[in-house]
């Protein structure tokens, strides 16, 4: 039986076979695409190394979860669901597009295996996919064009708005699905008119709609529509393919790879240069990222993969308080740099040499503004990393001597005295003197021995207010029956922030000194109440005994009956727990501190809207206390207000820096008397059964 309409493979434009064009278009399209991709690959090949080819099983798991299952998308429900539908549509319709590519010059082509029932089932699914993609495109366009969620706005200092690009791409997608449906719909209408046995078409799909709409059209116009829509689809498809690597839609191609190669650990910092051991650091010519090519290839891939969705910046505390940092633009500016300096058509225009990123692409304050809280990385649906980039840029600045005066003092003091305040080493364990004799603390540096080492770190050792945390911790440890001691004058700052502020060599010195003292102490495990020290000892140090946070110790001691807690008084106190970034996001310790709180019978606890992995940084610890940022308000103030909103009147933290920031913020927010902040260990000590 003659087909109802001539297929593109059989059609002729004035004696020229349409198949010729149908073949030429993909040939040119794919050729151009490969050329563009080669050019886009150039900066990756010039970038710094990063061995990310191991732990394949974990990587495949990440791909299945974060890429294929779009795990992080529903964290933003509307946009997330829309994206999942689009993404699923793309995957489903990918096969159809491949098929259509061949149909143009291969009469009756079907994908292998698609000529039977599988093909029919696929046809139904793809017709619905086409339809939902069409509606999602409409909704997305209205959302971007009319409702304009704040998240997508581009502040002036970061360049021009991206709405047009977004709408344009939605237009392309819309064109693809409409032309595909029209191609099918016109054929179906013709088949009915010709009395052929019309193929089944799923009801309420776009193809079904077009079939009904075109039912009475003359055959000639159906034939034109059929061929016209084919070529519209064909051209749009290959134009879109080559347009993807030109902007934020590059993620359509790169996200699969970016997720595959994404970081598997959290809380750690990349080495100065992969493949160079700590002992070889002195041999390196330069530290950190100064020029674009100093980034690792994964970081360049990150730039390519940013979809401009704004989730990172929406969760960034620095951005929220008006600091000059918006993680999204770290990526977009990086991508713009790569595109501008590796232009498609002029391979010689690569501006290398001495092109410094700081002062041109990124500003100093932008890079110092980050508290490394990790909220951006937690949120990014395509696995983009920011902390390592920020730290690498800081390493570059430190290496060039480009460090704010406010940070030079504490860095110098850490070098000389082992703590950022420049306090005397011999006074590091002075806080123990205020403890009652029954709570006496052993001092390894005085030759005493114990099974457990309590690593207090600088702020808890020296700050008048935070010494109370050390004292509370010591009392909890005593009451839990743990034999412990401190390093005393031999303890130095963990260097957690020294490293994250880019002073790698200072960190290396502190690490070496602490490691030696810890190993010499003979302690078999380490406990700390400072999440920054916790993270440093766990992630930045090697070869130490196991490290625990005091909240873990408390929970276990309560379970084993070594710590008994009395009920909370009925004093109207409502507690809320603030997750410290380096306990929660960077170390997944969300439940222990909560369990410790809930172990106090009758304690009333509420959750803030932003809790657990969406916790909002208090303002940062360590050196961040010294840095004087440009900002409109303090992160801590925002956080305290969030706590107040839940109806809580006590914020419990489990980090000395959080406590400093919260207590300051309560004053600044004018909530004194209405809100209080307390450390977990202090709260537990207050509820110990006598």
């Amino acid at each position: 039986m003659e087909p109802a309409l001539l297929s593109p493979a059989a059609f002729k434009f004035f004696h020229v076979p349409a198949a010729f064009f149908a073949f030429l278009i993909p040939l040119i399209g794919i050729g151009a695409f490969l050329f563009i991709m080669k050019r886009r690959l150039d900066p990756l090949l010039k970038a710094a190394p990063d061995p990310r080819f191991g732990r394949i099983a974990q990587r495949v798991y990440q791909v299945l979860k974060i890429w294929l299952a779009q795990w992080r998308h529903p964290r933003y429900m509307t946009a997330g669901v829309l994206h999942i539908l689009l993404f699923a549509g793309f995957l489903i319709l990918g096969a159809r597009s491949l098929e259509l590519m061949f149909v143009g010059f291969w009469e009756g082509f079907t994908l292998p295996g698609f000529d039977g029932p599988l093909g029919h089932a696929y046809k139904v699914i793809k017709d619905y996919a086409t339809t939902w993609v069409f509606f999602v495109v409409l909704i997305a366009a209205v959302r971007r064009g009319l409702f304009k969620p704040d998240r997508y706005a581009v502040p002036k200092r970061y360049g021009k708005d991206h709405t047009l690009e977004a709408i344009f791409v939605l237009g392309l997608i819309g064109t693809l699905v409409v032309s595909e449906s029209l191609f099918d719909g016109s054929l179906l209408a013709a088949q009915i008119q010709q009395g052929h046995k019309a193929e089944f078409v799923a009801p309420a799909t776009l193809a079904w709609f077009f079939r009904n709409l075109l039912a009475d059209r003359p055959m000639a116009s159906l034939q034109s529509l059929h061929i016209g829509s084919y070529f519209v689809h064909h051209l749009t498809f290959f134009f879109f393919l080559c347009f993807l690597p030109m902007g934020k839609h590059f993620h359509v191609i790169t996200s699969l790879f970016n997720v595959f190669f994404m970081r598997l650990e959290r809380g750690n910092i990349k080495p100065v240069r992969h493949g160079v051991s700590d002992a070889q650091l002195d041999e390196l010519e330069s530290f950190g990222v100064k020029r674009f090519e100093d980034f690792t290839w994964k970081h360049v891939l990150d730039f390519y993969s940013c979809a401009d969705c704004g989730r990172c910046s929406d969760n960034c505390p620095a951005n929220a308080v008006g600091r000059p940092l918006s993680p999204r633009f770290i990526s977009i500016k990086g991508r713009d740099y790569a595109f501008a300096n590796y232009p498609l058509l002029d391979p010689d225009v690569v501006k290398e040499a001495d092109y410094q990123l700081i002062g041109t692409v990124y500003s100093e304050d932008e890079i110092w503004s980050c508290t490394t809280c990790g909220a951006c990385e937690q949120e990014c649906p395509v696995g983009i990393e920011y902390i390592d980039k920020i730290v690498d840029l800081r390493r570059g600045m430190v290496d060039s001597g480009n460090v704010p005066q406010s940070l030079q003092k504490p860095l110098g003091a850490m070098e000389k005295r082992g703590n950022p305040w420049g306090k005397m080493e011999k006074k590091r364990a002075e806080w123990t003197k205020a403890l009652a004799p029954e709570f006496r603390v052993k001092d390894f540096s005085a030759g005493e021995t114990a099974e457990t080492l309590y690593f207090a770190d600088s702020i808890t050792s020296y700050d008048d207010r935070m010494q109370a945390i050390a004292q509370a911790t010591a009392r909890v440890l005593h009451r839990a029956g743990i034999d412990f001691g401190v390093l005393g004058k031999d303890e130095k700052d963990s260097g957690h922030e020294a490293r994250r502020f880019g002073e790698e060599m200072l960190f290396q010195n502190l690490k070496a000194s602490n490691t030696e003292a810890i190993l010499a102490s003979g302690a078999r495990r380490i406990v700390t109440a400072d999440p920054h020290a916790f993270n440093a000892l766990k992630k930045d140090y090697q070869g130490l005994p196991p490290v625990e946070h005091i909240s873990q110790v408390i929970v276990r001691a309560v379970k084993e009956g070594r710590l008994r807690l009395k009920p909370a008084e009925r004093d109207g106190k409502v507690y809320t727990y603030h997750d410290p970034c380096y306990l929660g996001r960077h170390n997944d310790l969300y439940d222990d501190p909560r369990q410790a709180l809930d172990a106090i019978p009758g304690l009333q606890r509420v959750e803030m809207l932003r809790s657990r992995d969406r916790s909002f940084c208090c303002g940062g610890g360590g050196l961040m206390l010294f840095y004087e940022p440009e900002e409109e308000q303090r992160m801590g103030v925002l956080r305290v207000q969030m706590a107040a909103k839940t109806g809580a009147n006590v914020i419990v933290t489990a980090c000395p820096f959080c406590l400093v920031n919260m207590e300051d913020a309560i004053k600044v927010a004018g909530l004194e008397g209405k809100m209080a902040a307390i450390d977990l260990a202090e709260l537990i000590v207050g509820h110990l059964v006598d």
Partner: protein
Amino acid sequence: MDILVCVKRVPDTSENEIELNRAGNDINRDDLVYSVNEWDNYAVEEALRIVENAGGSVTVVTVGDEEAEEVLRREMAMGADKGLLLCDEAFEGSDGMGLARILKAAVEKGKYDLILTGAQADDGAGQVGGMLAAMLDLPFASLVNLIEVGEGKLKVGREIEGGNQEMNAISLPCVLSIQTGINEPRYVGIRGIRKVASVEIPRLGAGDLGLDAGKVGAAAAKVKRLDYFVPEMGAGAEILEGSTDEIIAKLLELLKAKGGLK
């Protein structure tokens, strides 16, 4: 332009708890940490910036013992090309004039267009720069917080009473004492210091400098420290109380009453 910057190693006031020794004639030096005198650090930074723009070299010099070499290295890690350690037992106990005399001898051993000192040292009396200029018979400007390089001369700004700025032209060669705040000194990390750890720093003693050892050192000092004491804590601090608005109102009132606000 070839610039010589005079620097000094001093106990770091921000990182020490300064206590008197038992005899009461000096501070307790057991647990002290030292650093380069803050003013001198600004002077070195300024010299480096001048050389970065106008070309030339920066030499740092100090009078001190072997340990003083560490501050020279730190300044060389910042970018100074050469270090000079003026080290001799005969120099110990020199007063300001003695130090100026030693430095003068070092200046005359080289050829410098510009000599910078810090305006003062944490443990000093702010006198060496001026004396050095006088001994060298060179023009001098003190408390300089701005330098613009011209042809054969400099334009220098000085901070004067009430935060006002005075601008002067000064011909080269000259001596300037540098005030803090003239720039933002760059950071020197441990990595920077390690890079210059093995650079040879020449040491010059009295003989090398052609100095009469009798004219420097403790014996020649005409200014001698008699005593050190911690001043008695005076009354006078007043903590304002009340709501924030009340405190602000009281503070404004007090500032007006004492002439701090017009």
